């Protein structure tokens, strides 16, 4: 029996690593754009002030970048160390984007980061600028591939199950890459990084204004960052909208959980907070049609028929077909050498039911419901903070353009508060995506509990606490170093 404790600790360990990794990645994605824009201004105008401004943000970028790398390598290898069954069962598909990420993206980042950081006096101005952009582009390309991999887990496409090798095998590479979920997820994640970078720069710059220091530096940085941040937020909203439609289509249970929707229907209402509902809005968000049908948790468990007549199986029917698939799989494996005719029969039965293979591992239908409260509130936190931050950045940009920003001290204080908020929103987004898809590691095909490695609970607990200790230590040190560097300032005042 796969121990529940082993599954829970393995899941917690992965969640911990991913959450820590996502503390550092969005700033890398966003700050890269902000500082590359600043360096572009430097190259275009030749004004040394912009060079110093760029260099200051680059310094903070480097401190953050390094911890992102450290947490990232653990994630990659955890697929093998803690999810070994997963690694074989879908490695034929999942390994490819990870390898491509290394070959295409990480080498760009590694090479041009070194040129960007140490090459000011070694390469030409334009070459240096190209390196700064390429560092950011490398980070974005790496996001493409890791999100292609993640999206495949949410909406598995382009593969077939092969019972001889006991794994899913890739049959269509482009279906994997152009998976609609991957496209939305890429824009949603990368542009949320732009928001993080923008809020980070605005927050620190406003702190200088509160202190009456680095005036030109702060105002110039705010202008660039607010523009990047506003563009980013609109892109996040657009991609979030298409994400919503996709979740409704491919992972209706995740959507029902995110809405706390027990019984769905047409003209489904959107819950702002429990008890406050706007009629019809959920149908619009999920299907772009006010009369669209959105199933609730109970509908999904009990089975439902959409208005166009399409019937969706109940949880019990899916579990039955999963059992059939698993049994047919075992029969096929047992008979394929001794009795080819019976094996062919088993194979046909397996093929017929393979879509529900993962349901064979599910013990009760309650297992199929993710933690509703967590997903519901995480979604509201993400959307609520996102909206607030957009408003905030618009006001900041307006005040800066009107020359009134320095006098608006509450707004400057709000900018400091916005920094933790943007991180909370990013984490909440991933909670919606990843907690919302439980119990599946690959939607419908493999539950988390069938994906773990055969290691002891104690081993996973040990590494879990080890990672907690190391990552927390890194985070504390990173923050201390950042605060010192910020306090020291960019030293642009004499310009």
């Amino acid at each position, binding site marked *: *029996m*796969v121990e529940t404790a082993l599954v829970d600790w393995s899941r917690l360990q992965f969640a911990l690593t991913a959450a820590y990794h996502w503390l550092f990645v969005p700033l890398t994605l966003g700050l890269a754009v902000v500082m590359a824009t600043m360096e572009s201004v430097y190259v275009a105008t030749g004004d040394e002030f912009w060079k110093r401004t760029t260099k200051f943000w680059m310094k903070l970028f*480097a401190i953050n970048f*390094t*911890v992102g*790398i*450290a947490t990232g*390598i*653990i994630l*990659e*290898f955890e*697929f*093998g*160390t803690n999810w*070994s*069954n997963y*690694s*074989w069962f879908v490695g*034929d598909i999942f*390994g*490819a984007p*990870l*390898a*491509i990420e290394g*070959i295409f993206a*990480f*080498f760009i*980042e*590694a*090479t*041009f*980061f070194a*040129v960007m*950081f*140490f*090459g*000011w*006096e*070694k390469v030409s101005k334009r070459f240096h600028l190209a390196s700064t952009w390429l560092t950011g582009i490398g980070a974005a390309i790496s996001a493409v591939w890791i999100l292609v991999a993640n999206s495949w887990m949410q909406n598995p496409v382009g593969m077939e199950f*092969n019972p001889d090798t*006991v794994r899913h*095998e*890739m*049959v269509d590479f482009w279906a994997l890459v152009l998976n609609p979920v991957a496209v939305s997820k890429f824009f949603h994640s990368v542009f949320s990084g732009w928001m993080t970078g923008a809020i980070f720069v605005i927050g620190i710059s406003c702190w200088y204004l509160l202190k009456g220091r680095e005036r030109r530096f702060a105002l110039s940085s705010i202008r660039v960052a607010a523009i990047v941040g506003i563009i980013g937020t609109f892109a996040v909203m657009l991609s979030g909208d298409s994400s919503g439609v996709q979740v409704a289509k491919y992972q209706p249970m995740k959507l029902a959980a995110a809405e706390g929707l027990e019984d769905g229907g047409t003209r489904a209402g959107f819950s702002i907070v429990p008890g406050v509902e706007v009629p019809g809005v959920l149908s619009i968000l999920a299907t772009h049609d006010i009369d669209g049908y959105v199933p609730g948790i109970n509908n999904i468990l009990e089975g439902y028929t959409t208005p166009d007549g399409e019937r969706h199986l109940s949880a019990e029917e899916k579990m039955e077909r999963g059992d059939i698939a698993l049994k047919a*799989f*075992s029969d096929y*494996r047992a008979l394929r050498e001794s009795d080819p005719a019976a094996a062919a029969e088993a194979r046909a039965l397996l093929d017929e039911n393979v879509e529900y293979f993962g349901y064979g*591992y599910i013990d009760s239908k309650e297992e199929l419901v993710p933690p509703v409260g967590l997903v519901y509130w995480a979604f509201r936190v993400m959307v609520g903070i996102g909206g607030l931050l957009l408003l905030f950045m618009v006001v900041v940009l307006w005040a800066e353009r009107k020359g009134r920003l320095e006098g608006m001290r509450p707004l400057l204080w709000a900018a400091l508060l916005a920094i933790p908020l943007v991180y909370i929103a990013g984490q909440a987004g991933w909670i919606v995506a990843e907690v919302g898809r439980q119990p599946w590691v690959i939607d419908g095909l493999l539950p988390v509990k069938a994906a*773990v*490695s*055969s290691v*002891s609970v104690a081993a996973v607990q040990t590494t879990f606490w080890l990672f907690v200790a*190391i990552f927390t*230590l*890194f985070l504390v*040190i990173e923050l*201390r170093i950042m*605060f*010192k*560097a910020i306090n020291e300032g960019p030293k642009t005042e004499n310009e």
Partner: protein
Amino acid sequence: MITYEFLQHYWWLLIALLGGLLVFLLFVQGGNLLIFLAGKSEEERQLIVNSTGRKWELTFTTLVTFGGAFFASFPLFYSTSFGGAYWVWVLILITFVLQAVSYEFQRKAGNLLGTRTFRIFLTLNGCLAPLLIGTAVGTFFTGSAFYVDKSAVGHIAAPVISRWANEWHGLEAVTNAFNVEFGLMVLFLTTSLGALYLINNIASESLAKSLRRYLAIFFALFLVMFLVVCYHLITMEGFAVDAAGEVYMEKGKYFANLLAMPAVLTMLLVGAVLLVLGVVFTLLKSEFTRGIWLSAPGTVLAVMALFLIVGYNNTAYYPSTADLASSLTIANSSSSEFTLRTMAVVSLIIPFVVAYIAYFWRQMDRNSLTTEEINEGESY
């Protein structure tokens, strides 16, 4: 004709190439092991840290890509070895994680632990990473205790495909002398490469003198271990595979592979000669600083040859001592033909990647690193 079998061989060749490049790039770790040994003053220690510090991300990225490529091309190895030899891989990872932040943190105000602690992390990684990676690769020749049963997926209560046969989860590898010898050989090699790289990269006569002394010591140790490992490779039993895919023990299998594949034998010999020449020239001529550019290709070739001996010519590259039938071969552990073919197309970009890395490496290293540069420009 590009057959499935061809693709499996092609991908093993790429794994061998990445393995070779990784061992060469572990000169970063080797250099870091010398921080306190060769660096007699703060100035010298800082030169070493800044010199390897401009290359560490390439090593790190190669390690990540090596892992990703292995995952994509031979996923059964990824799932069996990483999930099985759990502690070895976790230890390796942790030392790399400590290394990753140490450069950036070591001299920054507010770093909590102090410069020395972070340099100790770098040294720890410099010692443990090559040693453990080498020991793990040693098990490619001596085997590990595991079972692979793909039908287990049908057992609802325990669907795990790969299981380790003991509770040590990889740590037992150190009880086999050959594995340890292999690990030490890699450690002494990477330290020698580190010394060669630093001699080439840093403009400091006093440091160069000290580095040459350590090069002599570590390379002598390497040669001893290399000969011991070669002796074992010639005489030891290997894990052979017959036409039906059955694994059996064969006396002198790895030596036989070498003789059966003259190209691989040539690679090994040319690699070893280049490696030795790079060191000998450096030690004999005090003005000669380019030894790394002989020893680096030598290392890549020699390591590639070792990977090819253990993977090609009907050999199980990741054998199981607990159950011979569970042993991994490049045929039974690879990705599907479609995936290998797709990834083969992707691999065509590799020469381009290598080319731009080499170009920028030259651009950045036109002049040797000096204390003035560290003090005036950006530095760790």
